[in-house]
């Protein structure tokens, strides 16, 4: 295959464009703001609470505490998230902003017991098993 040897100017152009891309990348990072935290426990292969009520169009940080001595993997196609939670460890998952609706999640290691859902409402007036810190 014949190779095209690029002029140093072309190489410089490529590098400049790469830097531009990196700058845009950094601009994405700096706009991160404070995110409200919501706690979710794993106890005896169950998610506690099994239902979380959250507000629409808002970003949340899900703090998952695995109190079991075995690993679990948080999985949700609805939320587009998948993350390992090691035994007796804490991990965080960022979700949202979400539209109004229900978003199911489960534990890949114990799919029959470790099940739950996030119910997203338009307002913050939901009571009951709401668990926002």
């Amino acid at each position, binding site marked *: 295959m014949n190779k*095209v040897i690029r002029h140093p100017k072309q190489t410089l152009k490529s590098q400049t*464009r790469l830097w531009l891309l990196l700058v*845009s990348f950094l601009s994405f990072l700096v*706009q991160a703001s404070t995110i409200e935290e919501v706690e979710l426990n794993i106890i005896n292969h169950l998610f506690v609470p099994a239902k979380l009520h959250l507000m629409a169009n808002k970003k949340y940080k899900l703090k998952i505490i695995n109190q079991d001595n075995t690993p679990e*993997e948080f999985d949700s196609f609805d939320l587009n*998230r998948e993350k390992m939670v090691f035994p007796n460890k804490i991990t965080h998952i960022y979700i949202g902003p979400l539209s109004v609706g229900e978003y199911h999640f489960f534990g890949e290691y114990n799919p029959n017991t470790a099940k739950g859902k996030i119910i997203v409402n338009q307002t913050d007036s939901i009571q009951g098993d709401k668990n926002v810190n």
Partner: protein
Amino acid sequence: MFKYYFILYIFTYLLFCTTAKADGAVVDKVYHPYVLANEQELEWRLMSTKKHDRNVLAQRLGYGHALNERITLEGYIIAERDDQFSDFSWQAVELEVRWMLTEQGQYSADWGLLFELEKDRILNNWELTTGLLFEKEFGITSLTINAFVINEWGSTLKSEMEFESRVKYRYRWRPALQPAIEIYTGEDFIGIGPAGMGIIRFDKQKQLKWELGFITELSQATREHALRFAIEYEF
């Protein structure tokens, strides 16, 4: 505010697109910037490109292992059919490192880096690829963009820097079936076509992931068609 960042990103990406340059097969996997801790995978990929005078066929077999929550390492054996269609043998080996830079969903977009080092089996030729991986959710759809800078050198190669990009816009319809559109740019190559991927779960971390794409070249009168197929068994 996000709109301005997004426009800036697209503008920057288009700058890349306009002068994309790369030698090898442009149509290949579109990488997501995510790593799952503890995950191991076996991967098989097939790339078949119909050029105006011949057909180029390449396959690769890989094994990957997540080193921690952020970094995964994968090794590949790459096999290609020669131009005379007489032999199909392994041509190169490759080592790949994927690094998840940001936590998924923490910022407006998710970012990762990719490093690949490929060595020809017989000739002393090398290829080093560094790539920036981007993914952004838009409701039930996801936009994934890969931008690669490629350096080649060796006994029969002249040192050069090249550029490739890959774009996938995916509709997360069902786990097993997620239709997508893919766009590729490379050396004198711009291609677009339908694609799809899906995940079939078995037990615990065991799952089968498939990807399929059919890409048609737009940049030349003699259209190339590329078919790519990949199966990953994750465990």
